[in-house]
């Protein structure tokens, strides 16, 4: 899919030449160990780099330049995967072919250099006014989770399940750590990121490979580095079967349940565990949707998700507060029947078809190609859709039952309105 070319020690370039898209996509990922401190610094850093640089000193100047380049998209973001924190920079620009007599690609390559290597400095560090403003912005982003009750409930469940662990640390960091940031400490984090992080660079689009490699070497002068190894998440167990109830001023009840599984991304049983999750609550044909929603009309949504890097399965549902017990027992029952072997051939086939389709579909966008390849590239075998489709095909009902038996309830979190709770 992508051709990998060593760019510098600790830096890899992955190229995909394709005429499928009307755009050329660049993605650069910087990775290191995830802590609340690193996530906080790096998130504020992405905001600062996105705000301005030495060439375009205000947001308006920077954005005007991007608009002129046929609305070239440039943004930074942060994410996490297992114990790893990622800063990513995405750039998408229209392929010159679709523009009459204009070339934007060279300008965009220059822009990559400017946005990364030519920051907007004052006395040798980031501009204080910009840093303080962006600290506030990120704090605001973190605090806004309170307004979205589903996100808040999920955040609380993760805190209860895995306190102070990467599984519950936000990729945005924490308010406490952000407040400690100074222009000097942020500049230090920036220099360390450029010099020490493990880096992957992606390019997908209708490009000339040789030409783009030569131009990228110039635009992105990353030096050799020996990135520190980020350890995998260790198996953990929540000590007690927690049941936490909290109240906000709201109408609906948010039931969020955390289960654990010993099976992680890349393990031999990983594909079996994906099938388990699909049948349990991953799709509209799944047991949770069919029973909690369609049969009992308890909810509009009831689904499960498999956080494979952390060995966790989450079930979420929005219900009337008075139905808390009924919904919880119905959800537990769906796991119990799977453990007892109540899985039909149809459910198995539907789930395999859906997983295969989903993977194929995600390759229909440049961003999807980059993300899928990025996720699977570190596994020992080479990635292909067919190989994964075959793995899912081989999964039997007995395999799924075996997976279900290893899934354990660890904690329940229920968020509902104050009046409802009093009833």
């Amino acid at each position, binding site marked *: 899919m992508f051709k990998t070319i060593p760019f510098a020690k600790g830096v890899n370039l992955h190229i995909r030449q394709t005429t499928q898209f*009307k755009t050329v996509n660049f993605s650069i990922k910087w990775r290191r160990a995830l802590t609340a401190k690193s996530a906080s610094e790096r998130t504020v850093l992405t905001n600062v780099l996105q705000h301005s640089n030495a060439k375009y000193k205000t947001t308006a100047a920077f954005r005007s330049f991007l608009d002129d380049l046929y609305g070239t998209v440039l943004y930074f973001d942060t994410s996490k995967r297992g114990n790893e924190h990622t800063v990513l920079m995405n750039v998408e620009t*229209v392929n010159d072919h679709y523009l009459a007599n204009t070339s934007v690609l060279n300008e965009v390559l220059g822009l990559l250099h400017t946005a990364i290597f030519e920051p907007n400095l004052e006395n040798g560090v980031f501009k204080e006014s910009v840093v303080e403003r962006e600290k506030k912005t990120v704090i605001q982003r973190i605090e806004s989770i309170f307004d979205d009750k589903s996100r808040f409930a999920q955040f609380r469940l993760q805190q209860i399940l895995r306190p102070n662990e990467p599984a519950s640390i936000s990729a945005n960091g924490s308010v406490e750590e952000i407040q400690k940031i100074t222009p000097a400490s942020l500049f230090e984090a920036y220099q360390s990121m450029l010099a020490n992080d493990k880096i992957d660079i992606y390019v997908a689009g209708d490009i000339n490979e040789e030409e783009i490699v030569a131009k990228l070497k110039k635009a992105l002068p990353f030096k050799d580095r020996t990135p520190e190894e980020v350890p995998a998440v260790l198996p953990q167990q929540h000590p007690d079967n927690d049941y936490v109830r909290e109240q906000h001023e709201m109408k609906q009840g948010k039931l969020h349940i955390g289960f654990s599984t010993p099976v992680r991304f890349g393990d031999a049983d990983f594909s079996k565990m994906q099938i388990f999750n699909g049948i349990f609550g991953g799709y509209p044909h799944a047991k949770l949707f069919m029973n909690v929603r369609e049969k009992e009309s308890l909810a509009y949504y009831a689904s499960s998700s498999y956080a494979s890097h952390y060995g966790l399965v989450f079930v979420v549902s929005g219900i009337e507060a008075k139905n808390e017990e009924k919904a919880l027992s119905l959800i537990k029952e769906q796991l119990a029947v799977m453990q007892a072997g109540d899985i039909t051939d149809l459910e198995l086939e539907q789930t395999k078809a859906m997983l295969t389709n989903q993977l194929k579909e995600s390759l229909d966008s440049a961003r999807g190609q980059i993300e899928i390849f990025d996720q699977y590239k570190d596994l020992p075998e080479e990635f292909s859709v067919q190989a994964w489709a075959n793995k899912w095909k081989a999964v039997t009902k007995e395999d799924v039952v075996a997976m279900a038996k290893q899934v354990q309830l660890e904690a329940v979190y229920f968020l509902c309105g104050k009046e409802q709770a009093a009833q």
Partner: protein
Amino acid sequence: MKTIEFKQLDEILYYEKLDNGLDVYILPKKGFSKTFVTFTTKYGSVDRTFVPIGDTESITVPDGIAHFLEHKMFEKEDGDVFQKFSEYGASANAFTSFTRTAYLFSSTDNIYKSTETLLNFVQEPYFTEATVNKEKGIIGQEITMYDDQPDWRLYFGTIENMYHHHPVKIDIAGTIESIDGITAEHLYTCYNTFYHPSNMLLFVIGAVEPEEMMTFIRENQGKKEFPEPTPIQRFFDIEPTEVAIKERTLNMDVQKPKIYVGLKAKDTNLSGQDMLKHELSVQIALELIFGRTSDFYERVYEEGLIDETYAFDFTLENGFGFAMIGSDSAEPDKLAKTIMDELAKYEGNSQFDRAGLDRIKRKKIGFFLRALNSIEFIANQFTRYSFNDMNLFDVVPVLETLTVDDLQKAFASIQGETQQTVFKILPSKQDAQ
């Protein structure tokens, strides 16, 4: 079957109007492995007063019925249609907007089986009192979920402020009380009136062979019988130009106030090229005044009056239209005043400059070309444009013709002081002002 070629874009569109009146469009996309199909009726939440097919008198149906009908289409005598799509490895979904109800799926395999399932399930209604009543619990929870979302309440609160009569002010899903009154008979009445093929559009895009697919669809439709198409009569009360409520506040469990300034549009009786030109002109004018390259943006961002939730948008359909500008803000009143002051600067003589217009044109052309990578965008937008007699692929040519005068003229339609309203959501612990 007709073909329409868009040379500069490397796209060929295939079109046929079937004997039963259904418009079918097929757009093959090279290199894609999935196919995306939407089957859409020109029927949404605003279509609540109309003459049922075969009748002479108009009726008004309960609020939320178009959305309720969308839910109920998926349930058949032999079970849930989602089951069948899953069997074919297809992801199916549906949505109801103010003016449309769309049923859709995407898949990389079994395209014909899924297309057949889509056509058949939408064209074979099955409603009973029992299944209708069962759905009330599910939709009730959907409504409750939206009730708890401050951004949704902000959006709808602003629309409610703007409109006296137009049903755009009614929540698409209705209320728990209004859906309680819905019966199977209501659903059949709405279904029979609005789901006639002549009121619908099928869009197929992706890894598809156009001739073969058109034949397949033609045969499927040829086997079914429909009454003669008759024009649908919809009724709307006369809506004044000025807003219904100038300012309103809602208290919710939020950590920071939220505010929208709403601008109610006049001149909404548009369609075709006029509508496209008008819509693009207003969007560009808003971008120039409130976009990220504007003086306004720089100022309010530096002053801390806005944060990352800042947004502005323009919606236009036949019969209603509005712009909204707003953000989460610690000083909602100050932000509202700053927005209004900015708007006032653009009254009378043109303040829009040519260089800015050219820059935004380039930005929008780039956006459009990027969007053409998304087959979902093309299918959904093409349908919306088509229902308003516009063509999605005219966007770039029309953009290129726009002048500063066009902007000024179009912008005047949302500019009057009496057309402005403010809606705020304040944290519960703060007192309503």
